[in-house]
């Protein structure tokens, strides 16, 4: 009997391993299903609907100040709800055809008001109502943080203080997802992991496409004056609808990849969003796993919730977990990026980014020189779906110029309350949110580029900076047009990291950079 049992277990494991190999690009998977923890929170068994209202505040629904953005965000409520409903009502065969077309139609022509996800997926919610509580509560955090950032009339300091309060408000509920970084490779290592994206790549592309939108928007808004936010969405919204929804990625977009500045300031929120999105992926995979019984699905969804709940990780600290790598309490993060858990193949700050290849997040994406510490953050470049931190405006300009399509450059000026936002058109012509912007570019040693390549809100601010820095006494202020004409190409200091794509073991170019 014992031998028969062992043989059965072995065969089951082999079958699962074979099933996992279906997609061809699966990471190493555990062959056994996770087991139910003994300390599953009691609320998961609560029969109540337990609807929670968002924090009452003057900024609620300020997202509507940017109507196309608001509507695209409202549309994101539709995708998972429709797919989940299809998965639990025996319509898996229609997912890549009819369901995809329906979701795509809604995302391309989004609703003008938020959508009640539970109303769209009544069968799913009857089966997995406890999961809906986790999703709803996290989605409220998503929307309220955006509302704060789009709210006019508050200073950046007021907004950041309110986001801290929102985090506390969110964390006080038992449905809250942990703000600790979690090991993404671990969270994607179960027998069913990757099943959904392998079997339903088009629908999964839509999901990851709007996860891109849900994460890229934070740097569009963070410390950017409200009057300068909408113009950026003309670039990002177009990118979202034409490209990101249909992009085939290796892994879900991470918040710190898409909004590095926001993630540095609010790592716990960036981590919570990534953990939320990974919970979505886990649930997709569980529902798509044909070999699981209904009871096993219920159990695995509960376990997936348990893994990311704040209550599960009480007492643990960000950065801890070196002694338990690749496990539930691996809370390590890249040194430079506390708002991201460890990714597959990651070595400290070096990670593989879909579309970019291997990148070292502690260095400038353009010149490979370490990024400056502290609040002086240089600039970011958003183009072709990615957002990268760079040391200086020169790197930002030249990196944007070498990337096809429109780009957004966000850069610090001498005034901490005024971020420079440069938006390029298809020809690379830049427009600025600061009409009298003046540039300093006194080309010198690259490691000091953040000192001699800067932007100022006015000529007088430029003059004052030059007076305070005698080395730059001969520098002339450059207008936007003059500055934009310069292109110094890829710096000699740039070092490409050439390694294979960890998500696709076969030979590859390793990304665009």
């Amino acid at each position, binding site marked *: 009997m014992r031998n028969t049992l062992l043989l059965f277990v072995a065969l089951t494991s082999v079958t699962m391993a074979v099933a996992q190999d279906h997609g061809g690009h699966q990471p190493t998977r555990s062959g056994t299903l996770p087991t139910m923890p003994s300390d599953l929170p009691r609320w998961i068994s609560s029969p109540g609907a337990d609807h929670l209202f968002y924090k009452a505040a003057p900024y609620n*629904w300020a997202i509507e100040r940017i109507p196309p953005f608001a509507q695209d965000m409202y549309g994101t409520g539709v995708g998972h709800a429709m797919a989940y409903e299809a998965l639990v009502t025996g319509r898996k065969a229609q997912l890549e055809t009819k369901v995809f077309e329906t979701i795509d139609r809604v995302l391309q022509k989004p609703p003008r008001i938020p959508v009640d996800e539970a109303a769209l997926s009544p069968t799913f*919610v009857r089966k997995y109502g406890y999961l809906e509580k986790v999703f709803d509560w996290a989605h409220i955090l998503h929307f309220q943080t955006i509302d704060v950032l789009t709210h006019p009339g508050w200073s950046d300091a007021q907004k950041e203080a309110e986001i801290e309060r929102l985090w506390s408000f969110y964390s006080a509920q038992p449905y809250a997802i942990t703000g600790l970084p979690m090991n993404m490779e671990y969270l994607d290592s179960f027998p069913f992991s990757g099943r959904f994206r392998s079997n339903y790549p088009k629908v999964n592309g839509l999901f990851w496409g709007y996860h891109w939108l849900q994460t890229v928007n934070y740097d569009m808004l963070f410390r950017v004056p409200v009057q300068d936010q909408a113009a950026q969405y003309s670039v990002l919204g177009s990118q979202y609808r034409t490209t990101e929804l249909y992009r085939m990625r290796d892994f879900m977009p991470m918040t710190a990849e898409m909004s590095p500045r926001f993630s540095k300031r609010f790592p716990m929120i960036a981590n919570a969003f990534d953990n939320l999105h990974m919970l979505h992926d886990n649930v997709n995979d569980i529902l798509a796993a044909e070999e699981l019984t209904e009871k096993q699905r219920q159990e695995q969804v509960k376990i997936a919730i348990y893994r990311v709940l704040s209550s599960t990780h009480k007492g643990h600290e960000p950065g801890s977990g070196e002694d338990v790598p690749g496990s539930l309490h691996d809370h390590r993060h890249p040194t430079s990026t506390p708002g991201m858990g460890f990714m597959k193949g990651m070595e400290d700050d070096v990670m593989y980014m879909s579309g970019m290849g291997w990148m070292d997040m502690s260095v400038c994406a353009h010149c490979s020189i370490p990024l400056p510490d502290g609040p002086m953050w240089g600039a970011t470049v958003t183009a072709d779906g990615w957002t990268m931190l760079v040391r200086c405006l020169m790197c930002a300009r030249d990196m944007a110029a070498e990337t096809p399509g429109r780009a957004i450059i966000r850069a610090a000026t001498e005034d901490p309350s005024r971020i420079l936002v440069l938006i390029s058109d298809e020809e690379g012509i830049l427009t600025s949110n600061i009409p009298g912007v003046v540039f300093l570019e006194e080309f010198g040693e690259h490691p000091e580029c953040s000192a001699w390549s800067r932007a100022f809100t006015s000529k007088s601010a430029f003059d004052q900076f030059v007076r305070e820095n005698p080395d730059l006494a001969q520098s002339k202020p450059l207008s936007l047009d003059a500055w934009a004409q310069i292109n110094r190409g890829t710096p000699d200091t740039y070092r490409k990291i050439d390694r294979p794509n960890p998500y696709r073991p076969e030979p590859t170019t390793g990304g665009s950079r």
Partner: protein
Amino acid sequence: MRLISVIATGLLASVVLAVDHNNVDSGRPLRFDDAYSIAYRERAFETGFTLDTFRRSSPKYGLKTEYKYGFAKNQDIGIGFEPSYSTSNRRGDFGNVELSYFNGLRREIDDQPALAYRLDVGLPTGTGSKGVEVRARGILTKTVGQYDKIHLNLDVMTSTARIMDERQTTAGITVGYTKPLGYPTQFDRTLVAQFSMEQSRDRSRDWVGSVGLGIRQQVGVRSVLDFGIESDVFETKGRAKSSVRFAIGYSVGF
């Protein structure tokens, strides 16, 4: 009709956001509830204009206003006012003040329906009102088909006042039906319908049957406009009382 337009326009212009077209509360626009409370910490303001027409008397106008607060998970309390104006005697009436408590006991789980109850206490503040009126309502909500829902409401109403020729305790049953319109591409409108039987307080009459039809239209991120029409269709003894009742309302959560 002009009055309706004026009231509706005024409300739309004055209140800011909340509530959902899928969640149904009695009076908005028909008389049934679904088995879900408003959210914990949500405040909701629901108001609506009603017009009752009668076959043999002049119409009566009402303005029902209710404020609710989700004071705990699955539970809300409310206070409502329903002043009215009768054209037959050209007199206004402040109406009774109504206090309500709603408790959502469970959501729909698998094939089991959602269950809730609500208690309403009517204080005798209206002209000629006597005694305290209490209504207990049991509520069951169940999905039928893909998105449609039925809502069964069972009512028992009683009054502390003993009045000649009036029943002290009466009963009622309402079957409500909701159907989202426009799925899977539009998500802002719900059709509501009901069939109701209610025992008359008047001992000379018996059970009155009525039907109703309405729409709940989301007009803002958390605000809903509703419109409904009800009519008594039969009575087991005596004549139908109200010919047609119109209701138009606005709800906002904040």
